[in-house]
């Protein structure tokens, strides 16, 4: 029996030790990923999204340290070899895997696509060597000819002609390099692929082509994707569920449509409204005042409070926990005191009112300073 959740992350925390104190890069994060979905993880630089991804794949190195939590991976029984079943059973905590088990697990079950295709490929090896190396390391049952055949199959699958297998990375364009990386990630038909900013360095047209490719491959093979990006506008288009991180914590988790239609957290609201639109009336937008916090000196209470137009006393004292603000959608959770009657009895639990958000002090400040001199 396979669970419909492929991955269950519970109370995961990652710290970085530094001379100036410990940084909680990922702080008590929990979420689940359903089989066959694209799970979007959005956040700014320093929000901990990449650290989280690396933790899930057990790729963190010193000074990063997973301090607590579990990452339970549920196997899909019909896709498991008897050998794997014996080694792992139905489900496994990735954080508990022994080195040899980890080697068996990675790439067959979980692979990762890194942000910079330029750095993720080895410049002195051909694409073919890099694809076949992966297969050789993780599936010793194939011989050289079978590996080559698989490489041809993979590279065609991502829309590159097979003769480019003999190319070196510098001979390929940015888009093709990114496609090659995706082909390598798909090499052993994994159940889950983590994609860390897979299209960030690409031009917008190429980015769209790669996204279409990912979506098409995902529909064909049914793998799940954790898609990490700072570009929420992109994420909202392609994801089934979206999680928003701020300063190492999840602040909102919802279905894509719920988040677009009704973002609860003021940060989510601000982020969604930080992207100018191409349709409809052109309107004045404010973004979010201030700048992301220093993780070494996070405020007590809600990390977003110093930038939040709605912050009140409780926000500066008590750290909000994730909870559902509305009974109608129990899966839509937000970490904000605005929707917690224990802290905020005078405000009804509705979504952030846009008309209030336009009254942030920064907007007035900008206009007053702009006119002086």
């Amino acid at each position: 029996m396979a669970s419909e959740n492929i991955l269950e992350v519970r109370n995961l925390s990652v710290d970085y030790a530094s001379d100036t104190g410990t940084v909680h890069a990922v702080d008590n994060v929990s979420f689940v990923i359903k089989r066959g979905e694209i799970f979007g993880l959005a956040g700014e630089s320093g929000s901990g999204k990449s650290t989280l991804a690396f933790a899930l794949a057990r790729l963190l190195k010193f000074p990063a340290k997973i301090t607590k939590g579990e990452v339970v991976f549920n196997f899909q029984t019909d896709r498991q070899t008897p050998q794997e079943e014996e080694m792992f059973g139905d489900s496994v905590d990735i954080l508990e895997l022994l080195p040899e088990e980890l080697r068996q697990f990675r790439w067959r079950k979980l692979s990762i696509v890194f942000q910079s295709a330029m750095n993720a490929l080895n410049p002195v090896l051909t694409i073919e060597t890099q694809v076949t190396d992966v297969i050789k390391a993780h599936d010793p049952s194939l011989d050289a000819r079978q590996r080559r055949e698989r490489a041809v199959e993979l590279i065609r699958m991502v829309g590159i002609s097979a003769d480019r297998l003999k190319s070196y990375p510098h001979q390929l364009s940015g888009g093709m390099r990114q496609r090659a990386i995706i082909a390598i990630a798909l090499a052993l038909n994994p159940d889950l692929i983590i994609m860390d900013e897979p299209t960030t360095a690409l031009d917008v047209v190429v980015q769209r082509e790669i996204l279409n490719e990912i979506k098409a491959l995902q529909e064909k093979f049914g793998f799940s994707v954790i898609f990490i990006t700072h570009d929420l506008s992109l994420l909202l288009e392609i994801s089934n569920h979206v999680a928003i991180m701020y300063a190492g914590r999840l602040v909102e988790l919802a279905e894509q449509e719920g988040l677009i239609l009704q973002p609860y957290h003021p940060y989510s609201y601000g982020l969604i409204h930080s992207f100018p639109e191409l349709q409809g009336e052109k309107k004045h937008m404010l973004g979010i005042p201030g700048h992301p916090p220093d993780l070494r000196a996070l405020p007590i209470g809600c990390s977003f409070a110093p930038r939040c137009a709605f912050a009140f006393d409780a926000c500066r004292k008590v750290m909000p926990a994730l909870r559902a603000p509305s009974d109608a959608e129990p899966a839509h959770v937000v970490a904000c005191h605005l929707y917690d009657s224990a802290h905020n009895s005078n405000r009804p639990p509705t979504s952030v009112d846009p008309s209030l958000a336009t009254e942030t002090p920064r907007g007035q400040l900008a206009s007053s300073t702009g006119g002086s001199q």
Partner: protein
Amino acid sequence: MTAPQSSPGIDTLPQPILEATALRKTFAVSSRAVLGRSGTVKAVEPMDIALYPGKAVALVGESGSGKTTVARVLAGMYPASGGTAKFRGKVIDLSRSVPKSHHREIQLVFQDPFGSLNPVHSVYYHLARPLHVFGHIHTKEQERQQILDLLRRVSLTPAEQFIEKFPHELSGGQRQRIAIARALAVRPSVLLADEPVSMLDVSIRLDMLNLLAGFKDDLGLALLFITHDIASARYFADEILVMYAGQLVEGGPTETIIKTPKHPYTQLLLSAAPDPSRMFSRGKKGIVELPARGEPPSLIDPPTGCRFHPRCPHAMPVCRERFPARTELGDGHSTHCFLYGEAGSNPQTSSQS
């Protein structure tokens, strides 16, 4: 501060403060650098551009489209390879090294605030230099006062706290504000902003765009906003120019370009841009059909004629032969595309103003 307004139509505007006609730029490439091939990179093919006081023009294109080169030529950082230019109606020569007076009027803000500030100098030093060089101060008190004013102008408050800081003590957004303040210290009339927000965190980009838009409205600066993001171009600019592989393909008032793009490349750019509202209008498939495929060409050996023709779904034989002249579509909207008529036989842009 009010929202950036749409231009009322280019015809009714006053004279441009800076305009360039048939501006062109090529770079010589040494033979060894390109594996045996020598030649020139045709970074900018003849194009016209005009900037007006109190107005923002967005130059939109992908990497390698030549948009940064245009800004650097206008700023006098690279000598132009061809074309003529006027500043306040007077002819200026961009093909050789420009006089100091050029920099007094035209300032450039770079994309990367991590590279554009000197790590060993304080904020005070960065802002005092242009004030000295351009003779805006005479006493020490004036100097400090003006630096504080500049910091407040770019919303770095309390200014007294920022004045002694060094770049490494500042966030990306704060650094970019210093870079903008440094450009403003010169008291220019034209500000060329090369991707001023693309290196910044998403949540602070709009704040920065609003700040720049404020200079346009309050100081009457003419702004050139270079971006790869057509949505922020729409937000920020009165007029949009679209470049592809060194060629200007379309230009006109912002809303006209966004709502009725004519050139197939502009259409491609718009259809590829992220837009969550699309989710509701086109169903939840998640796959967006693109009218064209492929990537921009090399500029050392670019396609002949219209450089977009290898990717263009409407390409005709003539597109391979020569680059179309400008077709006026009314209300300041123009495009270089044979789909909209045989606009003359001169393959270079004709100057019309």
